[in-house]
């Protein structure tokens, strides 16, 4: 057996796990790993400008590819800067391995320079984490970390590497596979439950599929589409579920929840059977929980048993991988052998009702002469990209307008911070996705507030010579909070009005990128066209209607049928 230093083990493990690219920022406590990484030269490293950017980039890479995202930071402030990105990945179940440097084991606990208990800090926002005290444990820990990150309900795993451990030597016995005594996620759904689920579907008159991020994570989009089409049943998606089912399908009702479509929310409220697939009945989806879907029975498919029965009572829980469960239900439907027409007929009345709701309040906005409406920008962006781009967003109105007006057909084409709602996510995530797919069009849709939270990553994109495009919907407000203030706080715009905003075109220029701006509706298409075809990083700024809101909107704590409409 060959002896290796800890730092060599880290690099070797990355290679064996098939890691092609990692994101990070060096420092004194991780300098040894960086040295090995550089001398080895196999793995591409992207130097970010802030460690938060590294975590979001690794996260964007993971979401776009389905592979484990990897990032590296130093001890102390380097480590604490990763926390928001780790929590973001944890909230959306994104597989990630984060390496942090640590002071030498002899100094741990001494309040040494750049020392912080990052394992303690990240315990509640990682799926698991490790402080490596003995280099002999490192091969096993590395294998465990990647296995835990990508299996079951995926999530971020952090490995804290003291400087002396990086340089200590031990035998490198890297296991091909690892068996855990205490960690065995259930993947295979119970057949009895599948049979019961089928029978419940067969009896239903007003069913609806409620699709969440689990479908995307489990790569179950094909099975989801097949099942919905076989049954001719309607599908609504959560924010995280977008791209898990084709947005252009005639069966799609669009997104549901706080800013979901009128039809989706009405459908959930009136359905007699909700089939939740990889979704977790989040408060943004259920609204007032007592008034949520009063007439519906619920089938809930989820890989994480804690998601089931957490917020609502479930009639048929199915614990397992979404893809496996959907496959089994598809099989059950085929076995029953009912003709397609029979299903169509069974749900015909339901569809008539759904279409009526769709017609009554479709997704829309009011046009105003001379003023750019953000929804129009997204519509045009969709039209020009033909829905083929990978879109990341920041958080707030920009995110919701994108979710509403861009139709996602391809899985993993929509990268957004759903659970944690992290402003500043979009640009670094776009960089991560672009590293994975250099030839694809990757666009970050941002607001003027969010973009400033990680705008330094423009330098990263430039250093890597990427083609990331940034669309800034500039209303000189923290728009979503302003909207709440308008509706629920007597229009007292406390701390949401940006009376100063930088010149984003000049910022683009300063970073050596291209900057374009549209101030009138007739310039929108032209700016988008020019921006999308210009190589390299391009910022496209749109000065939009200042007080435009996102509608429909279910006020927090209200029933989802009590929507404020356009």
């Amino acid at each position: 057996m060959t002896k290796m230093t800890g730092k060599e083990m880290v690099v070797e493990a990355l290679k064996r796990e098939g890691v092609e690219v990692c994101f990070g920022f060096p420092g004194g406590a991780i300098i040894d790993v960086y040295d090995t990484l550089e001398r080895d030269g196999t793995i591409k490293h992207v130097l970010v400008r802030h460690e938060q950017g590294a975590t979001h980039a690794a996260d964007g890479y993971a979401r776009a590819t389905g592979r484990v995202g990897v990032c590296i930071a130093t001890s102390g402030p380097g480590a604490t800067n990763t926390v928001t990105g780790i929590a973001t990945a944890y909230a959306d179940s994104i597989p990630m391995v984060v390496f942090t440097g640590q002071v030498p084991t002899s100094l741990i606990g001494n309040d040494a320079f750049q020392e912080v208990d990052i394992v303690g800090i990240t315990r509640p926002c990682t799926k698991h984490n490790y402080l490596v005290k003995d280099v002999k444990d490192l091969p096993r820990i590395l294998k465990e970390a990647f296995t835990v990150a990508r299996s079951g309900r995926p999530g971020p795993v952090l490995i804290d590497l003291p400087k002396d451990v990086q340089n200590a030597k031990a035998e490198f016995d890297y296991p091909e596979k690892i068996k855990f005594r205490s960690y065995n996620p259930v993947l295979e759904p119970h057949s009895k439950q599948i049979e019961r689920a089928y029978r419940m579907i067969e009896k239903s008159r007003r069913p609806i599929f409620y699709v969440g991020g689990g479908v995307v994570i489990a790569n179950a989009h094909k099975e989801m589409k097949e099942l919905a089409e076989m049954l001719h049943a309607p599908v609504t998606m959560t924010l995280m579920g977008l791209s898990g089912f084709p947005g252009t399908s005639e069966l799609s009702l669009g997104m549901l929840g706080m800013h979901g479509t009128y039809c989706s929310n009405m459908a959930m409220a009136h359905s007699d059977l909700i089939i939740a697939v990889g979704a977790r009945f989040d408060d943004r989806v259920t609204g007032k929980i007592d008034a949520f879907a009063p007439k519906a029975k619920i089938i809930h498919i989820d890989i994480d048993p804690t998601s089931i029965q957490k917020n609502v009572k479930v009639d048929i829980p199915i614990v397992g991988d979404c893809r496996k469960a959907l496959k089994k239900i598809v099989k059950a439907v085929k076995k029953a052998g009912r003709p397609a027409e029979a299903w169509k007929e069974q749900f015909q009345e339901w569809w008539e009702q759904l279409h009526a709701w769709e017609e009554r309040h479709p997704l829309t906005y009011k046009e105003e002469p001379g003023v750019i409406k953000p929804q129009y920008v997204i519509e045009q962006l969709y039209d020009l990209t033909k829905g083929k781009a990978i879109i990341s967003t920041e958080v707030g109105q920009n995110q919701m307008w994108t979710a509403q007006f861009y139709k996602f057909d391809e899985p993993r084409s929509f990268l957004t911070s759903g659970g944690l709602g992290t402003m500043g996510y979009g640009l670094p995530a776009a960089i991560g996705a672009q590293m994975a797919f250099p030839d694809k069009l990757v666009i970050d849709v941002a607001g003027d507030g969010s973009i400033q939270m990680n705008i330094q990553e423009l330098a990263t994109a430039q250093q890597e010579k990427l083609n990331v495009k940034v669309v800034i919907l500039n209303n000189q407000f923290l728009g979503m909070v302003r909207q709440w203030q308008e509706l629920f706080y007597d229009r007292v715009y406390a701390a949401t009005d940006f009376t100063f905003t930088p010149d984003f075109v000049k910022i683009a220029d300063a970073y050596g990128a291209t900057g374009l701006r549209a101030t009138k509706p007739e310039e929108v298409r032209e700016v988008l066209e020019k921006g999308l075809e210009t190589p390299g990083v391009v910022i496209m700024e749109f000065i939009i209607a200042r007080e435009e809101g996102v509608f429909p909107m279910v006020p927090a704590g209200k029933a989802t049928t009590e929507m404020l409409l356009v």
Partner: protein
Amino acid sequence: MKHKHTLSVLVENTPGALSRITGLFSGRGFNIESLCVAATLDPTLSHLTLVTTGDDFIIEQIIKQLNRLVDVYKVVDVTEGVYVEREMALVKVKAEDETRAEVLRMCDIFRCKVVDVSPKTYTIEVTGPESKLKAVIELLKPIGIKEIARTGTIAMVREKKTV
């Protein structure tokens, strides 16, 4: 309906495992009434007995959340079946002239042991289910308890079933 539940948890004997469990309770607003941790026959596993209160919904979540932790090997709600539980307390009680005999009588009735004697105090060891400890403590209070240390409950499923 809220009920007291005693959970028996087998967990990997690794640094941070206990903190993961207590962090889970505080982070999710669950409540720990008592907690007792010690090694098992297998030195790589620790046995943790935890008493908590909640309705069925909460207890189901607690058990699921515990199981979700990578370090947790097994969780059993001992309260679901037949079980024995014990807790131990050391009680330092005032024992001067007229009360010295009274304290000893009480010890006798409750089958407690006197483990330390000083001119003015007795330290007694009480073992039993929580209800017994409560009774002893209530009776000793008027005499004057100077100090008390309790272990928290440990529990075991009866008969053949093992955790």
